[in-house]
Structure formats: structure tokens, C-alpha cells
């Protein structure tokens, strides 16, 4: 027997609509789960239980008047701590923002909140979203609900784990090089990274602005479609947000019939470095797509091998510029002491407030942009970005959707890769190309490996064709009927 917190958002919407449950009851179920498991999972940095209760009561009163209900009405949502929330502490997983209380809401949260979602809390993440295991959080790692000794993935590890464990029904995260899709894969939930600009970045604490994308965590593709419908759309406060019509993503899910669909299987993504259990599970899922009527063929993205190199120049370069704002002047930490001048104060504040990975990327990015090196590093990386974009354009002339594993491995033990940054960066080798090209991609659970850990399949479609990754993902999950539940909560 499932608790309310284990149900999908669309199931809860039906129950809320007929008055079978109240928003207060749905929230209470999530809060109970948080109390039961979060001392072990550590998904939340700032729980907002009291605010949430008040909000749910308001919502019940509002809905009882017969007011229109949205897909998000009464749904408990967790928000990655890189989205500003008015009056609620927002740390970005960093000591430099340990006490920062923003005076405004991020648009992504404004939209969810405006549609009736209830904030359960702010979730743990790698510092400034830089990481693939959540071990770069200044507040300690998130523990994977499938095996508490293993990483949640990252950087949106808290959001992924919260949804996997039923601490929230939905969550939002940010995906700059895979930070939604990779933790979704490792935690056995659905992670959607839409087209760059599809969802406003206003209020998303900037990491690498040309790559940062707001994404969703849900336990079904149907819920991902509903969430995207709430979040997508133009925002005058983000000049890069797209002014394109927002289709009815839920209507586009279809009936699971994939006849006529052309699927490109990215052959290079099944080779060296990919765990056999991951490759086997994803290949089995591809077979199911064929059984549902899809036609598959092999495809190569010739420059994907260079995408990681380009990413680790472009993202740190943009980060080094974006993170210049943390200077101890207007908000955030200021190092104590009798500073001779403001410059000395800034040096001390930044040295004290940033963690090792953030420092690494600031130095790397500053170097790549510095006089004498710009052309050889940043300039060349931007050319590789063009080549990656062209690879996708060529592939999408032949295929409607591309498939690969989301991550080369399942969840690895906490501490295993912290000493080797390059090994950690390789976690994102299959997710980074979609960020460079801006195309939408989704990670959908497709099975468990021999150790019982979740495996995700990544589906990628052309710019603004979220409907296709949602349709194919929905067909696959309907066919597989996995109903993944981590052992931590499965016995309930």
C-alpha cells in the first residue's frame, strides 16, 4: 500500500479534484517521509515545513471554493538550492551564501507556486551546481536512497533523492552538463532537461550562463510533461528565454505506438568505460522501442569525444566570470578581520567562502580566458561547440530521437572519485553534448544493474521538440512497468 507521497502528481491531482484527499494531507505524507528518512538521505538543506503547512491550508480553502485546479495544485515540490526563494535561505550549496536570504523568487519557482505547488524545502546540491556526485556540497553529500553508502549523483542530487524517496512528489533542478539527468539516472527517477531557454533562468544562481538549463524531477514521464507545461514559456526577465509557443505536452504523450519513429542509437556510447550492466539495460530498452514499432539504426556523433574537453573550458570560463560577484560587498559572506582595503577583503572572502571544486573551476576558467591563452583554449572550445551542434543537426536529418545511456555507471560509492577530478568529470560524458547544442534530453529509468542499482536511458531530440522525448519516454515506461521503489521506502 503506497502512501500519498509515493503517488504520481497526476494521481494526486485526480484525488484532489474529487475531494478524496486534501493538499494538507498530501503534504503531511511528504513531511512524514522527510522525518523518517532525511536524517539518512540528507536531501534537504532548508526544510520549509511550517510555510508549507500554511500554504497547503490556503490552497485547500481556495480549491474548496471551486477555483480551477492546475496540474501543480497541491503538489509538494522540492527546489534545488540554486533557485532564489523570497524570504527562504538560498545557499547554492556554498559557505559563501550560508546565510543568504534572497529578496525575490526565481521565475521557475514563481510559476510552480503560482500554479498551486507547495514548497517542501530547498535541496542539497554540489556547490554552485559544480559536480556529479553531490560531494562538493559545503553541507555534506546526499546519500542515494537505493544504497545510502553511494552517491546520489549531482549536481541536483538532493532534488533527485527527495523525489526517489517520496520526500517530495516533484522537484526542480538545474542542468549545465547533466546535473538533472545524471542524478535522475542514479536515483531511478525521470529527469528532463528541456531546450536551452525553454524555461526562464531568472533567479537561477548562474554557473555557466550559455549552458544552464532548468529541469524537472518526477517519478513518471507523464508528470514531467505536466511540470514542463507549468514551467515553460517566455520571461521578459531572462533575455535568453525563448518566445516560442508552449504545446500541450501531456496531450503529446500519445498511446505508446512508436510506428514510424526513427531512433538513432549512439554507438560510441556503449564502449569503453560503460559498465556492462548499464549497456545491457539500455540495449534491452532499445529492443522494447523496436517492439513498440520504432526503427533503429546506428548513429555517430563524431565530435562528441571532444565535447567534454570543450565543456571543461567553456563552463569554467563562464563560471569564473559569473562568480566574480561573490565579493563580500552586497550579500553573502565577508571574511572577518581588519582588512587593509576592499581588495584584500575580497581575496580573503573568496578564499574562505569557496570550496575546492569551485576554486578549481575559477582558476581554470580565469586561466582559459586570460591574455595569451584565450584563443588556444576558450576560442578553440567555442569552435568545437559549433562542431557538436552540426553533429546533432546531421543526426536529426536521419532520426527523430537519439538514445544512449545517461551515465556510464550506476551510483558509485561515496568517496570513490573525490581524489580524481578528471575521473569525476567523465560521469557527464554522455550528457554534456546536449548542453553544448541546447537540445532537449530526458533520462528515463530502464532497469536495474546486477547490484540492484537503477540505470537510466537518455533520449535526445531536436531543439524545442520536448514532445518527442516525452512521447518516447512515456511509451517506454508504460511498456517496462518498472515501478521503481528504493529499498529504503519499498517496505512501506
Amino acid at each position, binding site marked *: 500500500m503506497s502512501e500519498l507521497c509515493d503517488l504520481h502528481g497526476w494521481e494526486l491531482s485526480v484525488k484532489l479534484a474529487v475531494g478524496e484527499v486534501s493538499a494538507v494531507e498530501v503534504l503531511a505524507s511528504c513531511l512524514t517521509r522527510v522525518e523518517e528518512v532525511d536524517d539518512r538521505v540528507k536531501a534537504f538543506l532548508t526544510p520549509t515545513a511550517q510555510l508549507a503547512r500554511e500554504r497547503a491550508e490556503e490552497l485547500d480553502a481556495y480549491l474548496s471554493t471551486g477555483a480551477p485546479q492546475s496540474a501543480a495544485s497541491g503538489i509538494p515540490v522540492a527546489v534545488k538550492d540554486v533557485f532564489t526563494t523570497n524570504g527562504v535561505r538560498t545557499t547554492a550549496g556554498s559557505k559563501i551564501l550560508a546565510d*543568504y*536570504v534572497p*529578496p*525575490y523568487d526565481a521565475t521557475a519557482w514563481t510559476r510552480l507556486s503560482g500554479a498551486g505547488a507547495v514548497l517542501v524545502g530547498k535541496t542539497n546540491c554540489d556547490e554552485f551546481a559544480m559536480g556529479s556526485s553531490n560531494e562538493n556540497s559545503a553541507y555534506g553529500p546526499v546519500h542515494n536512497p537505493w544504497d545510502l553508502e553511494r552517491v546520489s549523483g549531482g549536481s541536483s542530487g538532493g532534488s533527485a533523492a527527495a523525489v526517489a524517496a517520496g520526500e517530495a512528489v516533484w522537484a526542480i533542478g538545474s542542468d549545465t552538463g547533466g546535473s538533472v539527468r545524471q542524478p535522475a539516472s542514479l536515483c531511478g527517477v525521470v529527469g528532463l532537461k528541456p531546450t*536551452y531557454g525553454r524555461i526562464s533562468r531568472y533567479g537561477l544562481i548562474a554557473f555557466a550562463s*550559455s549552458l544552464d538549463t532548468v529541469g524537472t524531477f518526477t517519478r513518471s514521464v507523464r508528470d514531467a510533461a505536466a511540470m514542463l507545461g507549468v514551467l515553460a514559456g517566455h520571461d521578459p526577465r531572462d*533575455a*535568453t528565454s525563448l518566445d516560442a509557443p508552449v504545446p500541450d505536452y501531456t496531450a503529446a504523450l500519445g498511446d505508446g505506438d512508436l510506428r514510424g519513429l526513427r531512433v538513432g542509437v549512439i554507438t560510441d556510447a556503449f564502449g569503453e568505460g560503460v559498465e556492462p550492466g548499464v549497456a545491457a539495460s539500455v540495449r534491452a530498452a532499445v529492443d522494447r522501442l523496436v517492439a513498440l514499432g520504432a526503427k533503429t539504426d546506428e548513429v555517430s556523433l563524431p*565530435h562528441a569525444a*571532444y565535447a*567534454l*574537453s*570543450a565543456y*571543461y*573550458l567553456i563552463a569554467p570560463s563562464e563560471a*569564473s566570470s559569473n562568480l566574480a560577484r561573490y*565579493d*563580500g*560587498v*552586497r*550579500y*553573502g*559572506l*565577508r571574511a572577518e578581520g581588519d582588512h*587593509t582595503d*576592499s*581588495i*584584500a577583503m575580497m*581575496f*580573503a572572502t*573568496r*578564499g*574562505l567562502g569557496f570550496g*575546492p571544486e569551485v*576554486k*578549481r573551476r*575559477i*582558476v*581554470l576558467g*580565469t*586561466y582559459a580566458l*586570460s591574455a595569451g591563452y584565450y584563443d*588556444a*583554449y576558450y*576560442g578553440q*572550445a*567555442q*569552435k*568545437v*561547440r*559549433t*562542431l557538436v*551542434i552540426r553533429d546533432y543537426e546531421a543526426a536529426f536529418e536521419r532520426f527523430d530521437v537519439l538514445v544512449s545511456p545517461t551515465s556510464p555507471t550506476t551510483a558509485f560509492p561515496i568517496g570513490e572519485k573525490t581524489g580524481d*577530478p*578528471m575521473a569525476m*568529470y567523465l560521469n557527464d560524458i554522455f550528457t554534456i553534448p546536449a548542453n553544448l*547544442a*541546447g*537540445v532537449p534530453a530526458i533520462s528515463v529509468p530502464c532497469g536495474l544493474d546486477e547490484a540492484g542499482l537503477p540505470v537510466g536511458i537518455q533520449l535526445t531530440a531536436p*531543439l524545442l521538440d520536448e514532445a518527442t522525448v516525452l512521447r518516447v519516454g512515456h511509451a517506454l515506461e508504460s511498456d517496462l512497468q518498472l515501478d521503481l521503489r528504493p529499498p529504503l521506502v519499498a517496505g512501506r
Partner: protein
Amino acid sequence: MPVEIDVDHVAKLARLSLTDDEKAALRVQLGIILEHAAKVGEVATDDVPPAAGAFERANVFRDDVVEPSLPVDEALRSAPDRDGDRFKVPPIAETGE
């Protein structure tokens, strides 16, 4: 070959104080990362134009209309130090004394 970088110089550009241990670790780690990153040069030929983003965007303008902005008190709410309606910081210029 790992790339050798002048960490002291770069940290100065980034206004980032680092301990000797941090600098030593960064020298090694960034050398390896940059060696990998330098592979971009293998395929980025002169005839390939650079891409700054996923798709080309021209400047986006809005009408030049005055809109309400954050109240001063709100903007100063998280300031580490303030003096009335201003951010207070250590000296920023020689005082001439």
C-alpha cells in the same frame, strides 16, 4: 604532457586567496585537466566559426520604460555591513594621509 600553469598569477587575476597546499594541488590537477582540454585544438580548424551559445541570438531589447525596482532596504537586507542606505566596505582608495 600536463600543462604547466602559473597558479599564483591566475589566482591574483581571480582575486582568490589560496593556501600553499591548495596551489600545489591545483598545479597538478589543472595540468591534467588542461592536457585533456587542449584536445579541442585537434579539430577546431580555422574554417569553423565559434559558437557562443546553442543558437544564434541577437541582442534582446525591451521598451525603455521605468519599472519599480527593489526597495533600498530589501537590497541591503543581506549586506555584510551597511552605513545607512549604503554598502559599507573597507577602504577602496588611498586616503592621502
